């Protein structure tokens, strides 16, 4: 399940936490998936929203999501664009629609690529790639 167990010579592209994304990654390290939510109209928003796409409020807050969702669509990548994926092809890429509404890019773990289907129920799991960075991925629920 963890694709970063040290067998890959070149790792996947790094993810650096910045000030804006710190709340997201702090929560991820604790096993919580955060998205953003409008403080005024309560619309659920994808990270990172500059302002609410519904009411244009600039008051949006990081909010814990359920972590449950379904596969909106997915693909299986065979082309290598970065050496970090050489040992992983073919690997899956997916868009998961959270129960709250926002759609997130992700990878599906915990099942074979050939078992992924559109509409499949999934829940979040975290891939710890460093002391500070855990990456949300989704596994069959």
């Amino acid at each position, binding site marked *: 399940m963890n694709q970063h167990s040290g067998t890959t010579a070149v790792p996947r592209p790094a*993810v650096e936490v910045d000030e804006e994304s710190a709340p997201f990654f702090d929560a991820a390290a604790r096993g919580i998936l955060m998205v953003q939510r409008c403080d005024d109209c309560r619309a659920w928003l994808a990270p990172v929203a500059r302002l609410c796409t519904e009411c244009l409020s600039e008051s949006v807050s990081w909010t814990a999501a359920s972590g449950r969702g379904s596969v909106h*669509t997915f*693909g299986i990548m065979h082309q290598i664009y970065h050496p970090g994926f050489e040992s992983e092809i073919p690997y899956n890429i997916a868009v998961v629609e959270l129960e709250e*509404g926002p*759609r997130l890019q992700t990878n599906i773990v915990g099942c074979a690529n050939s078992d992924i289907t*559109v509409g499949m129920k999934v829940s979040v799991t975290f891939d710890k790639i460093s002391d500070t960075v855990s990456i949300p991925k989704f596994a069959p629920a």
Partner: protein
Amino acid sequence: MSRDWMGDSLTLAARAVKLALEDAGLKKDDLDGLLVNAGVSGAGPRRDGNLSLNLQTTLGLRDLKLANHMNGAGSTAGQMVQYAALAIQAGICNVVACVFADAPLTPGQSAGAAYGSRGPARGIAALGTHYGFFGANASYALAARRHMALFGTTHDQLGAIAISNRKWAQMNPRALRRAPLTLEDYHRSRWICEPLHLLDCTLVNNGGVAVIVASPERAAGLKQPPVYVQGMGQGHPGNPRRAGYENEVNTGAAIAKAAAFKMAGVTNDDVDICELYDCYTYTTLVTLEDYGFCKKGEGGPFVADGRLEPGGPLPTNTGGGQLSGYYMWGMTPLSEAVIQTRGQAGERQVKKHDLVLVSTQGGVLDYHATLLLSPHKSL
């Protein structure tokens, strides 16, 4: 058009404008408007060779009344003609060159490297790259997958589009891929990002295309028969990226079409030829749905059985399109539409060419511009 290096994109653009002027029987001093659209790259060893408004200086154009570097992604070609026409109608200028050029294939850089863009390394935005989302191939694969899941669209149906394009390309001396293509060849072509095979994806090449827009009065009596813009429109749906929206299976064509067809006073039955932005086989399929040639979700059965092929009832992408012809963004459908409308397509000329639909499409089904072209001043 070539997969070889022919010069930087600024040089290619200058050559394209020169050829367009010669073709029209105009001199460069006749131009008083210039709209440019650079592709992804192509500066070459001189570093200053990317197409930009520097084209004015390169061509020695003076006292222009309209100049802009436009970027509506793949929809730009259609948009440039629209803004040129609007400016001319408003009396701002008289003769506008619209030019696209690109040279992504530099010695040592593949198409994948040129188009497989990488995101930033910091913050939330870095996640996409970490997950392995690269370039347009991934995004269009996800869109095609959604269509297949919702509507049962098949690889045989997508393959039918690739084959149709190749049949047309075999009659186009400018087309870069003309070898015969079978459905077996299509299925055997390697995966890029499932569900897309290599032969679902556009080729990539260097080149430049220019078209010149003028009023009917100014165009009368020039070297070439005029091509009249009978209708135009744009549609940019916006992708909220959350539940309740189906951007993967809907384009801006439906919005753009409404304005363009109303302006021209025509219906789908009046369209003789479709020249559609076909960066992927799937793009053709979903675009035909959104123009209303078939219902949403029925694009698969609609394109099977040779409907789009030479001799079929809806000749589409008659120069081979982007898949087999040449990849000049929206200038691919636009240039072939001009050739067909004039009746100058030689072996591949479609007999009835009174109304030609041009669709230019960009982003991931995000931006759309429509033109309706005709050899007739009034329909």
